[in-house]
């Protein structure tokens, strides 16, 4: 009789082991995806602020707009190393300035007519759209991961190891409406 108990115990242990290794594998996958999406988002943010600085030196906008954009772009660049919330705020400021600078399709058309290099506006449009997509994909990845890490067994057994709990990136990422209107 005791052999049966032993066999049952072994089976239960094996099942637990299988579950743990599968969950650890999932977490590993999810963390790797977050690393990728985080990196992609960083790249897009840097690309956007860089592009903004380039645009301000090209004479695309009037002097007043140029000063505001340059100011926000510098602030966004400076916040890269800083704390997450502060960075989100700085990047949101840049978003709002860009939205105010190109509020509608008509404004965009006038800018395009006078622009020394109209392709800059196309670059700005695609960078802003891609930034929005990147952030969306990143936050999706974070949510999927947090859902798994919320499970009691995962927390108790520390299946996630020492990886810190991933955080979503909160900021305003609306692309300038004048550029996205079709």
């Amino acid at each position, binding site marked *: 009789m005791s052999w049966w108990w032993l066999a049952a115990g072994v089976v239960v242990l094996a099942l637990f082991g299988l579950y743990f290794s599968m969950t650890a594998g999932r977490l590993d996958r999810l963390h790797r995806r977050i690393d990728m999406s985080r990196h992609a988002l960083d790249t897009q943010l840097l690309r956007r602020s860089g592009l903004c600085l380039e645009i301000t030196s090209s004479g695309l906008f009037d002097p007043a707009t140029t000063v505001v954009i340059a100011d926000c772009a510098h602030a966004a660049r400076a916040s890269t190393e800083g704390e997450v919330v502060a960075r989100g705020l700085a990047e949101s400021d840049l978003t709002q300035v860009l939205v105010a600078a190109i509020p509608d399709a008509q404004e965009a058309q006038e800018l395009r007519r006078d622009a020394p290099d109209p392709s800059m506006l196309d670059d700005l449009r695609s960078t802003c759209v891609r930034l929005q997509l*990147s952030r969306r994909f990143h936050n999706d990845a974070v949510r*999927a991961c947090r859902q798994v890490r919320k499970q009691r067994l995962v927390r108790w057994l520390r299946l996630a190891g020492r990886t810190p709990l991933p955080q979503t990136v909160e900021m305003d990422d609306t692309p300038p409406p004048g550029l996205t209107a079709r």
Partner: protein
Amino acid sequence: MRIGIVCPYAWDVPGGVQAHIRDQAETLLDMGHEVSVITPVEDPMHLPPYAVDGGRPRPVPYNGSVARLTFGVKATARVRRWIREGDFDVLHVHEPLAPSLGVLACWAARGPIVATVHSSIERSRVLITGYYLAQTALEKISALIAVSEHARRTIVDHLGGDAVLIPNGVRVDHFADAVPLRIWSGPAIGFLGRMDEPRKGLPVLLAAFDRILDQQAGARLVLIGPGDAEEALAGLPDRVREATVCLGRLDEVDKARALASLDVYVAPNTGGESFGIVLLEAMAAGAPVVASDLDAFARVLDGGRCGVMFPVEDSDALASAVIGLLEDTGARTHLAQAGRRRAAAYDWHTVAGDLLDVYASVIAGQSGVREDLRGQIVGRLARRRPGGGER
């Protein structure tokens, strides 16, 4: 950009997903990108130069119809080699929930993976297909795309996470420039789709056609698509059989020509449609559309402004709608114009631009798609066989 596209269904069997992938690949090539498609195929001779043979498909009942899917050790090995040798910047998997090459590719690759969900699947089906299976694949996908609001809801409700909506596209120029194919007399009513697939709704149209002949004795029913026409027409009155023209399966050029010569295009589908690309093709070719009032069709037809809608499976309402259109030339011209305008908004070049934005947003700062050997028992076996050393 080097783009690897994975097609889950057999290339030489006509279907919405395959057509989508072909148009996507050709448009992206047209725009100067490098594209490779891996797909199941019956006869590799039929593959275009940009496609790679992913193995023989096996017919499996899936999502309400018979799908030809490829899986197994051999297919896994092929997908692995394709990923290893392709050196792609981004991998685009279609229908990642179908148990076919898409899931295999998700398992075999790491790096930026984009996936498009085409069909709307019920929750029970998702669970039956193996939630864990779906999960392992989905958790590696960096960006999910849905072709319709319907498909997006499948993702949000049942899988968790969100998807970007990028509607299906039409190669408008292919259809708009088509020369009408007139090999019959009398007003032509067209149907396009598999004749033996119940959800395409051919029986509904055949029942309605009998009534249409009462009013329009000279009308013709033009059937385009694979399937046994004799079987579909069995047991119907002689006059229905005599007035029916069967064109069988047509290539893209002839399909466009056939659509361009229709007086009314009918889509009597009874369900399971997530988008309705055939509707847009007919509209781009200038054929007035009558369609069942599925959600997906209503969206394409702009709530009925670009076509006439009738209640699903109601052949009497279908007959009245078709007769009404055949008797009113003004309404037909109006619908044809509205349809052409509507179709232009779905041109593939616009769609491809949106896709490139998604690609760019996931590959920024990445080093491309690599082979993933972690935790892949099947994959390791497949790799060991040709004598290649394991990592």
